[in-house]
């Protein structure tokens, strides 16, 4: 086993274990912290794939912004410090059946996919290529601009809702 493999197993276990704890944890605040740990694991996997930019953005956006937002929402939720009782409700059986069916659907697809074992090396100017492709009309300029317009619309909507009534 090489060093890379050992590190991969470590990050994979971190991601999966923390993800599991996110669902199983009874305390809402702890669940968010486990979610953050899981996202750190994903960032580690990105680094192993030599996608450093994605790793940086993953940490900056998902941990630095979205998780903080979730923590704020959780902390401002009334009665979150109380013990919420058992994590299962009376729909747990139906949920388990549907999740199982989904797994049955997904497993053959994943098993049948020919995973390439030798990926081509990442070019040194990958970030530059990414930046150029985002503004190239033949590649992703339109989706990129659309996403920007959507964020702007959401921003204006948030300001309109939060504005004091005159």
């Amino acid at each position, binding site marked *: 086993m*090489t*060093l890379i493999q050992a590190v991969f197993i470590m990050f994979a276990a971190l991601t999966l274990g923390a993800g599991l704890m996110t669902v199983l944890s009874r305390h809402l*605040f*702890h669940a968010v*912290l486990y979610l*953050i740990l899981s996202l750190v694991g994903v960032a580690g996997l990105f680094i192993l794939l030599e996608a*450093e*930019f994605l*790793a*940086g*953005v993953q*940490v*900056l956006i998902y*941990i*630095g*912004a979205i*998780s*903080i937002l979730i*923590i*704020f929402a959780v*902390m401002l939720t009334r009665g979150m410090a109380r013990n919420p009782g058992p994590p299962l409700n009376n729909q747990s059986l139906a949920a388990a059946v549907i999740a199982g069916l989904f797994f049955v659907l997904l497993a053959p697809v994943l098993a049948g996919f020919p995973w390439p074992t030798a990926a081509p090396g990442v070019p*040194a100017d*990958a*970030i530059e290529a990414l930046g150029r492709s985002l503004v190239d009309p033949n590649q992703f300029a339109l989706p990129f601009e659309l996403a920007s317009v959507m964020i702007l619309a959401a921003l204006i909507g948030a300001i309109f809702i939060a504005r004091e009534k005159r």
Partner: protein
Amino acid sequence: MGQIYDFIYNLLPYLGMWLYGFLRSLGLSEEAVFLVVGLIKAFLLANFGLIGFAILTYVERKIVARFQDRLGPNVAGPYGILQPVADGIKLLTKEDTMPAGADRWVYNLAPLIIATCALAPLVVIPFGPGAIGADLSIGVLYVLAVGSGALVGVLMAGWGSNNKYALLGAFRAVAQLISYEIPAVLSVVVVVMIAGTMSTVGIVQAQDVPYLFVLPVAALAFLLSGVAEVGRTPFDLLEAESEIVAGFHIEYSGMKFALVFLGEFVHALVVSALFAVLFLGGWRGPWLPPYLWMLIKMSVGIFLFFWLRATLPRIRIDQMLNLNWKFLTPLMILNLIGVALIDKGLRAAGVSSGMWAAGLLLFNMAMLIGALALPGYLGRRARMAALAAEAEAEAVEAAVAAH
């Protein structure tokens, strides 16, 4: 003579090369050498942070004391130079308390996360050509990303302490850190745009003229938001003693408190190092060896922080938010657009690099003067209107009384 100078100049890369050769001669594989060298670098960088923290606590107390016409620490050792050691021993012997009802794991992990996230950015700070922890292609993005991890630590400390002041302090801290991240990121984006790279080494190499003299608006915005992100006076309302006692770290004692404190000081160190890298030309300079230049330029930022702390009073929370959202953020967005247009225009016109720098400097200075004059004008108009209204009310009152 030339050889000696070359040796002193390239001391750190030579040491690295010697270490590499030494480890290879021991018969270690390439991968093992990579691992060992990485661990040694991590050890050195972490200790740079810790020793920097110890020195900074002493220097800050001395400098602030001088500003306030006092002597500062002067008992432990000559000129009180052993004060950090005494403080360290004192903190080690303090009782390690935990408040009742605290969230055990969250409370105990928070200082570790804060300290780690503060130390981690040191990896991409270049101390000279070839003397860097790791030259990541995402350099400055890495610093911003890791820095945002400290937010989680602050929230954990605030929540885990089971104390209302701690929680309020954490809310304030996160609101301030998230707000000021925006102008900080925008000013870094301006530099990245001009340098054409996110690597810290690449940014230093691109600075034939230090960017302070090309992009002064971005430099000022970065410094201001840096002070705010570190949470030092005048932006220390996240630990305002008169309102919330000490903020998110109120319940910590002993070495855990020291770790939180370490996070704050190392963060200041990192911000000033980043300021040196982004705007002062990093290790580049005449005569002196590069690592000395880097340390000198870092001290400039640090001294500015202490100077601000000793001079300015604390601002209110509405002033803090107004300064960010109504001044710094719009200013930096306009600056980003303007610099992009002028940079492309000048390069398309094919002017010399001196003319290019002068053009950008001219634009930035015009923008700075405009940005400072406009709020001044608006504020004066508002004050005058208020004064006029008051005078009118008084006149009416006087007329009523005379009647």
